[in-house]
């Protein structure tokens, strides 16, 4: 007996974002811990790629734009990183969830494909997590994806301060989409390019457009299978029962049950190898 699971492989191929992210779909961003985990990690990575000064006094003076802020997962990462931010999104359902989550950034609703509604030079940095692929599609007869991309990237360049960097993570459906988006970005005055983490794995790879408004800054290094830049980051899936796995499971439990006192607190004994008893 075989059960076949059918699932839309790409949300962008079914509906535009303001219709796709209705209340039911948006709810997943409060309840699905896997989605939240992945979005959080990519947000943290995007912030890392911004290469902002570590000094918290400097960070607290900066203003970041979060493009496609959705339910506020990336916004929470920005706040955690000590940064002020404004977020824009097209979906009222997702912004509703951001309000429920009591995000600490200013919010506005807009369609980035018409151009961002901001004056010149407002933002010290820009992040975007899993939003730009929506610019590759259009099912409205009046809208043209390339034109929308140009409108977005031109307005993005304009609203960034001199020397600001934008790090935009997105999921291209294929190589063509990737190249089109990259070309649109690079034709609007930016320097920089594409950084792809875990490029060997079709499943794990993550694409980040890293766009600078001035001069040539060295591009940040991507993470790869051969150990990557962070010796502490696990490239292989965490082995079940390992200390890292235990810590992750405990963190997941804490996130779901913030008031529970059931978990033993972390100590140097957590996940330590015990002597064989049998």
């Amino acid at each position, binding site marked *: 007996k075989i059960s076949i699971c059918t699932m839309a492989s790409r949300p962008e191929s079914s509906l535009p974002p303001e219709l796709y992210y209705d209340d039911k779909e948006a709810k997943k961003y409060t309840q699905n811990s896997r989605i939240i985990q992945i979005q959080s990690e990519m947000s943290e990575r995007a912030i890392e790629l911004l290469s902002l000064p570590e000094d918290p*006094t*400097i960070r*607290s*003076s*900066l*203003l970041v734009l979060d493009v496609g802020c959705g339910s506020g997962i990336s916004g929470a990462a920005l706040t955690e990183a000590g940064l*002020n931010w*404004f977020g*824009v999104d*097209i979906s009222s359902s997702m*912004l509703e969830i*951001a*309000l429920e989550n*009591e*995000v*600490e*950034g*200013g*919010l*506005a*609703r*807009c*369609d980035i494909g*018409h*151009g*961002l*509604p*901001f*004056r010149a*030079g*407002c933002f010290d940095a820009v992040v975007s997590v899993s939003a730009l692929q929506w610019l590759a599609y259009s099912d*409205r007869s*009046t*809208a043209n994806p390339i034109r929308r991309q140009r*409108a977005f990237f031109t*307005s993005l360049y304009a609203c960034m*301060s001199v020397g600001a960097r934008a790090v935009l993570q997105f999921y291209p459906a294929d190589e063509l989409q990737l190249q089109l988006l990259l070309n649109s970005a690079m034709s609007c005055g930016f320097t920089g390019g594409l950084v792809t983490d875990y490029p060997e794995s079709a499943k794990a790879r993550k694409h980040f457009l890293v766009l600078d408004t001035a001069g040539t800054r060295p591009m940040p290094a991507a993470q790869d299978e051969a150990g990557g830049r962070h010796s502490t980051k696990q490239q292989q899936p965490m082995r079940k029962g390992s200390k890292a796995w235990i810590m992750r499971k405990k963190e997941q439990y804490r996130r779901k049950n913030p008031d529970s006192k059931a978990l033993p607190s972390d100590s140097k004994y957590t996940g330590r190898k015990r002597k064989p008893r049998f």
Partner: protein
Amino acid sequence: IFKISNMKLILHNMLTSAMIKGVKKGYPLLLRATKVELQPVEFDAGFVVHMLPRLDWSGVTAAVQCLNQPDLLQDPLPELPPTVPDDYANNEDFLRKAHIALMQLDVIEGCLVCPETGREFPIAKGIPNMLINDNEAA
């Protein structure tokens, strides 16, 4: 618990209607507020100093004036000079007033109006809706 996500005048100052076809400047957007709250926000001098050069100060003072309606706010509005003083970076008195104006006046309901086309952008639950139709876009 105060809502940082409500539209503050610092956000209002950065918004523009320039994505509309034919609009040349698109700011400052006229502010018609029907519900405003004064919310405490921690004063960060560094942030105000960093933001001031990129703000349209006449837009800030105009927005504060727009909020100067009877019955809109119980608390008094901060008194702002017409231009940013030259010594703003060290002028704590000015920075604190600017902070109140920029960060503590939450616009919860109302609308923003394009100064060139009159096109309205509603504000609901503190979130301005800057959506336009495809045929309005530049």
